[in-house]
């Protein structure tokens, strides 16, 4: 009797400890711009997206406990790398998500590699992240500059926009965008008639727009972002650029920029994104859930990317039963094909690039928009295999070995 009781007790204790040993603790850090330029593109909306992914994954069923923290990198590489260090060193964060602003992403990528943790990039654009600066600890989700250049540039040239004039923000990112798009335009048989550099955060584009008008190029490429793009388009409307038959190509435009401009000003703008809330029922349903916490706003492709990346990361951790070794988790993520309600089926390449289709959109005219958020018409779909830079052109040290 006593023996039976102690055996039962021992068995219960064993089962108890076994159950505890199964509970893996995972901590996710959403590092984004919470207060400035990209707060609506990433920001608190990304945190909501991550939370939704955790809910949908149901960690308890896999013996995982997930905690989410977030912070504001204020678009500064030093703030970002500082927070990343502290999170990895002190706060036991296993994976960092989002990070819009390429300069911050580059810094965080270095830290993640140094500490062997995971970095899932959704917000940043630079194609260098899967190129010369690729890392076995990072996965670049959502989009990049190569995709943008080839999407918008290529599509426009095909539809007759064969002469281009660039308005370029005079810093590395702007020049990269201009360079990538120029090569696409020229490869497709188009001509670049000229370009003008403008200082970052310029208020007044009238003189640059004048030059663009004088060039008579069919397409005016905006190799800039954020406030600069908005100002260029707003003032372009004033100067009758689109009325005069020229077309703006927004090389890095988000749905939030379109909202800021208003449809009247932004109509006709051509841009490339990899996810739009109104494209299908799954997206719409997800958006409705997301909007419960972000009233009056619409999710961007960056936030959708955070959802998709979190889901896939958790799948990999569940398969490995551990989040400790960053490289191992990323390799697992590359081994399993991706599948989620937002991006559908896809996969992650050896260089860390997530592959999925891209879409060419055009901003609707005000009269075409039937309800709030109805901003885009789908013009073309770029299949996944063509949307991103071929791996052989990467110059990624991991791959050339």
């Amino acid at each position, binding site marked *: 009797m006593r023996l039976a009781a102690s055996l039962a007790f021992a068995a219960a204790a064993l089962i108890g400890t076994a159950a505890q040993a199964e509970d893996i603790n995972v901590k996710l850090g959403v590092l984004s711009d919470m207060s400035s330029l990209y707060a609506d593109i990433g920001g608190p909306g990304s945190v909501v997206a991550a939370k939704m992914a955790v809910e949908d994954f149901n960690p308890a069923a896999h013996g995982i406990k997930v905690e989410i923290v977030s*912070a*504001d990198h*204020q678009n500064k590489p*030093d*703030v970002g790398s500082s927070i990343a260090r502290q999170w990895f060193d002190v706060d036991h964060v296993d994976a960092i998500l989002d990070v819009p602003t390429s*300069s911050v992403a*580059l810094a965080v990528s270095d830290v993640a590699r140094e500490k062997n943790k995971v970095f899932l990039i959704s917000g940043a654009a630079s194609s260098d992240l899967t190129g010369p600066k690729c890392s076995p600890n990072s996965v670049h989700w959502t989009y990049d500059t190569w995709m943008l250049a080839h999407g918008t540039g290529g599509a426009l040239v095909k539809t007759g926009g064969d002469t281009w004039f660039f308005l370029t923000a005079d810093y590395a990112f702007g020049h990269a965008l201009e360079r990538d798009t120029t090569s696409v335009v020229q490869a497709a048989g188009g001509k670049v008639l000229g370009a003008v550099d403008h200082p*970052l955060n310029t208020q007044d584009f009238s003189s640059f727009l004048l030059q663009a008008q004088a060039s008579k190029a069919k397409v005016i490429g905006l190799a800039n972002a954020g406030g600069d793009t908005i100002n260029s388009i707003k003032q372009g409307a004033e100067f009758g650029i689109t009325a005069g038959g020229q077309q703006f190509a927004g090389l890095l435009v988000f749905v939030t920029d379109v909202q800021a401009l208003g449809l009247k000003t932004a109509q006709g703008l051509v841009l490339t994104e990899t996810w739009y809330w109104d494209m299908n029922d799954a997206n719409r349903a997800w958006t409705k859930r997301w909007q419960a916490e972000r009233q009056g706003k619409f999710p961007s492709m960056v936030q959708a990317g955070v959802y998709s990346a979190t889901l896939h990361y958790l799948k990999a951790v569940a398969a490995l039963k551990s989040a400790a070794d960053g490289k191992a988790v990323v390799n697992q993520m590359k081994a399993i094909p991706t599948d989620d309600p937002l991006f559908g089926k896809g996969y992650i390449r050896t260089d860390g690039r997530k592959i999925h289709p891209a879409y060419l959109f055009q901003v609707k005219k005000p009269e075409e928009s039937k309800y709030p958020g109805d901003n885009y018409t789908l013009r073309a779909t770029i299949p996944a295999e063509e949307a991103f830079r071929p791996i052989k052109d990467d110059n990624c040290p991991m791959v050339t070995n």
Partner: protein
Amino acid sequence: MATLANAATTPARRETAWSLAIAGAALVIFLIAAPFVLYPVFIMKALCFALFACAFNLLIGYVGLVSFGHALYFGWAGYLAAHAAKVWGVAPEFAVLIGTVTGMGLGLIAGVVAIRRQGIYFAMITLALAQMMYLVALRVKMTGGEDGIQGVPRGRLFGAFDLGNEMTMYAFVAVVALAAFFLIYRIINSPFGEVLKAIRENEQRAVSLGYKTDDYKLVAFVLSATLAGLAGSVKALVFQLASLTDVHWTMSGEVVLMTLVGGLGTIFGPIVGAFLIVAMENYLAPFGQWVLVIQGAVFVICVLSFRRGIIGELAARLRVRL
């Protein structure tokens, strides 16, 4: 008209130097014990900013000159130090040296231009120079523009100490900072320092006593810029990054904030101010949206009712020098 530095006027009596010794000892003890309790990178960051603020305080608290463009020396020294360590591959001690010399050189050029004017015009010139150099940093290839110079190697100090080890790096930063604080203390309490204080109190009188005040002001300016450069170079190595944030005018504003909060014209004021502001920003990182508002509120409160700053108030209440 009450001058900016009036807040800092406490009787300079030799016999109260014991308060400084106590405070100094407390600082050393804190620095020795802290890395075992707090996150070392946080303390290193605070020390770099403390040095920056002390350098700024040398000018505003003791000479009475307000520079709104101090980020110029801090940031550009960081760029040169980072470049030297990463591209030229020099050892960390030389990288820091190169950065510090950059600060000195830029300080000399800026000083020669700015010293010729006083008060608000001096401040405006420093602001204009800093803004220009910010715009240059934005465009010049070497600085990496928006990306900054990333992946700066920390290297081996004197060929022997691997600065990649967090504690070794910490020891290096702490030693450099303490040495610099001591240097500032010696500068302030030298005959040279007394002349500076005389210029702050009443420049005309100093001139009439035969001092070439412009020369003194220039030397003080260059010293201040050099030390700011030292701070910037060390910071570049700590974070292995030099970026535009360090040359932006908001960085110049931050150092004013730190010095004001800590106490103008006190030795330990800027150190305390720097630690406080860095801690505040750290604590508020999850609430990024409120940082701007809180910083602004601190500025307003300090100006309205707290002009002497924390250490300044403490020193006044206890009637000692701090």
